[in-house]
């Protein structure tokens, strides 16, 4: 008995169609639902990426020229110390959680978050932004592309992730994104995997499991880190119970920034790595 405000609203077994007797009708319902749901797989990357909302926060742009000497407004408000001076203003996209506090604090408009979703890079140092264009991920070399270019099996390891990065990785497997059409698949065992996709700041309690999973993955193998946590620890950087991300523990082949990265940012990174887009 299913109730609402204490009144029965249905939900007894007898309330539902007895589909044992009406197998054909049930099949018809499935077909009707199929028509209602339509074909929804996006055409990206052949067509442009899906339209992102107007309030979406994408790649930041730094304008050094207006920056006031000695001003600390942005560095003081940043929760992850992603923005700093050395002596030029620099923003570490690997630590940035795209909260826009720096942008709002700046009197001169030196930091502006745009709508560009492309952020993935191959080397940690490429995440330091100081006004130059970001050096987006290059594809694997010829041998790497031959191995993984048309079939990449990944084992995802969540190591302290809050389930937001994980959720938006899961989204790539839905019919809307259909990751399988690129030959990319998430597999259940590291033994079946060509590499790891790691999320979370790597808690002390997950470190051993992560390293064992890496060891159990046959070589040659790739390591991809997604989200500020996995790159640098994110807002958990410096906690006793985390290892400040996977970057210091394993050799990383692809960095996907964000908190969490939008699915299209993750897909863009994976496809760049495989040389499917440039």
């Amino acid at each position, binding site marked *: 008995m*299913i*109730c*609402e*405000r*204490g009144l029965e*609203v249905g*939900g007894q077994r007898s309330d*539902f169609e*007895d*589909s044992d007797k009406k197998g054909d009708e*049930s099949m018809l*319902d*499935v077909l009707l*639902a*199929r028509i*209602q*749901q339509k074909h929804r797989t996006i055409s990206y990357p052949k067509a442009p990426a899906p339209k*992102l*909302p107007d*309030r*979406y*926060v994408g790649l930041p742009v730094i304008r050094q020229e207006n920056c006031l000497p000695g001003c600390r407004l942005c560095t003081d*408000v*940043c*929760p*992850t110390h992603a923005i700093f001076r050395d002596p030029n203003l620099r923003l570490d996209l690997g630590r940035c959680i795209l*909260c826009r506090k720096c942008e709002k604090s700046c009197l001169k408009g030196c930091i502006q978050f745009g709508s560009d979703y492309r952020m993935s890079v191959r080397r940690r140092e490429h995440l330091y932004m100081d006004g130059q264009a970001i050096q987006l991920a290059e594809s694997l070399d010829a041998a790497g592309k031959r191995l993984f270019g048309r079939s990449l099996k990944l084992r995802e390891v*969540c*190591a*302290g*992730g*809050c*389930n*937001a990065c*994980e*959720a938006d990785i*899961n*989204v790539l*497997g*839905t*019919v*809307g994104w259909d990751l399988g059409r690129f030959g990319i698949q*998430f597999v*259940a065992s*590291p033994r079946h995997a060509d590499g790891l996709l790691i999320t979370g*700041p790597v*808690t*002390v*309690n*997950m470190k051993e*499991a992560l390293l064992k*999973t890496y060891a159990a993955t046959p070589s040659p193998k790739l390591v991809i880190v997604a989200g500020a946590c996995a790159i640098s620890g994110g*807002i*958990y950087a410096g*906690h*006793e*119970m*985390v290892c400040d991300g996977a970057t210091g523990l394993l050799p990383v082949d692809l960095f996907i920034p964000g*908190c*969490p990265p939008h699915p299209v940012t993750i897909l863009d990174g994976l496809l760049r790595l495989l040389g499917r887009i440039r």
Partner: protein
Amino acid sequence: MSDNLSNLFSMPNGHAVDIKSLDRLNISQFQETVMNGIGQGLRISAMFAHPVSSDGLRIWAILTHDRQSLVVPVYTDLKTRCYPSLTPQCPQVQGFEREMFEQWALRPEGHPWLKPLRFHDAYGNTGLSKSCQSPVMGVTDFFRVAGEDVHEVAVGPVHAGIIEPGHFRFQCHGETVLHLEIALGYQHRGVERHLIGGPNSRTIHYMETLAGDTTIGHATSYCQAIESLSGARPSLRALALRGVALELERIANHVGDLGALSGDVGFLPTMSYCGRIRGDVLNISALICGNRFGRGLICPGGVAFDMDGQRASELRRRLDDVEADLNSAIDLLWKTSSVMARFEGTGALSRDLCDQSGLVGPVARASGIERDIRQDFPLGIFQYTQIPICTGDSGDVFARAYVRWLEIQRSIMFIREQIGTLPDGNSVQPAADLLSDHLTVSLTEGWRGEICHVALTDDQGRFRHYKIVDPSFHNWIGLAMALRGQQISDFPLCNKSFNLSYCGHDL
């Protein structure tokens, strides 16, 4: 309230009280009060300890009275590191007592299940040597069933799917699960300790990532706590927008879980559709604030993004599409006998067990308990509008799934109503400094159930202690109990019908 409870201070949800005005109980009065409360149908929403002097600890119990919408905070001070455990008479405190033992070496004498909860070192000086203190992750005295044909199955921490880590230890006889023990702690990031001394620039971001799928729920609880301590009053408009965001979060997660349940019984149409529709709901949240999980939307004093007319009509249009797609996708579940055969009777929890274990949210409602913060402790927009509570009575996977489906429909109606009649007002009111030496309790009905935040301030108005109780903290034991006598192959199905948070538990 009767007995000694009527003499105690009680307050509504989202109120702050001067700690000095509360009576300190001795340990036996404290325990008697708690047990009296339980006897009269109150629940324990939080129980925790924090140091008050070099060697003394203060234990708080936050009792909640669903019928009278009252929160009863009680405390006692302890100089010793042990007290008689309440767990044997009151199972719902088992997790809290284990937590206090792990954090402060505060030993509940007679606790039947005194094992690590999160596998971390004790806080501060416990008087024990380092080697006794440091637990090794996942190494504990697992309960074992002995006998011929009995076997053990271990799963995790790394799971087959893209989900968070935890360890499950099954004692099986053939296919039948005799006992399931769940060991968590892999996700422990040490958040609560870093909240002390706050609020600071990281605080809101911790709240948004306590459980990333409950960003709005936890951020709302936090902001309500801040507002009660600072006297800030968000406008009705801001409260309405918070409510819309909270219900969108509920819809997105329920839809995702109904799809996953469908996948777990091998019914692919609904699985495929729900996976995509969930994304459409997340994109509605992104329409409001730019982020699919609602990051940056909820802030102390209100919401950081306003809703213009054009955005509101776009939201309504998308919600209509979601509703039409959902009706066709979810209806298939109830019409398909192979789905119903797997849902019905699987993983059933009795109402009594839910009550004794202090379970919350759709899990408790599926077993017939009318328990919902939006009705019982209304705060924010829920003071002005009501969402009907949906309950089931079979307590099985079917009831949990069907209750969630009804909640989705009620949430859609709620959002439509709110967006159609958005009051005027500023989106955010400035927040003042926090009151010093106060305690506040803030409850929110997240999509998994009751989210409880308790903030205590020091003489400077900074957090002396901040306690977070995610609904998963109450409900993990429910999953373990639901598996008893079930086939082990039904574990994924049962698990998904709860879909509890690992990081929300581990903090």
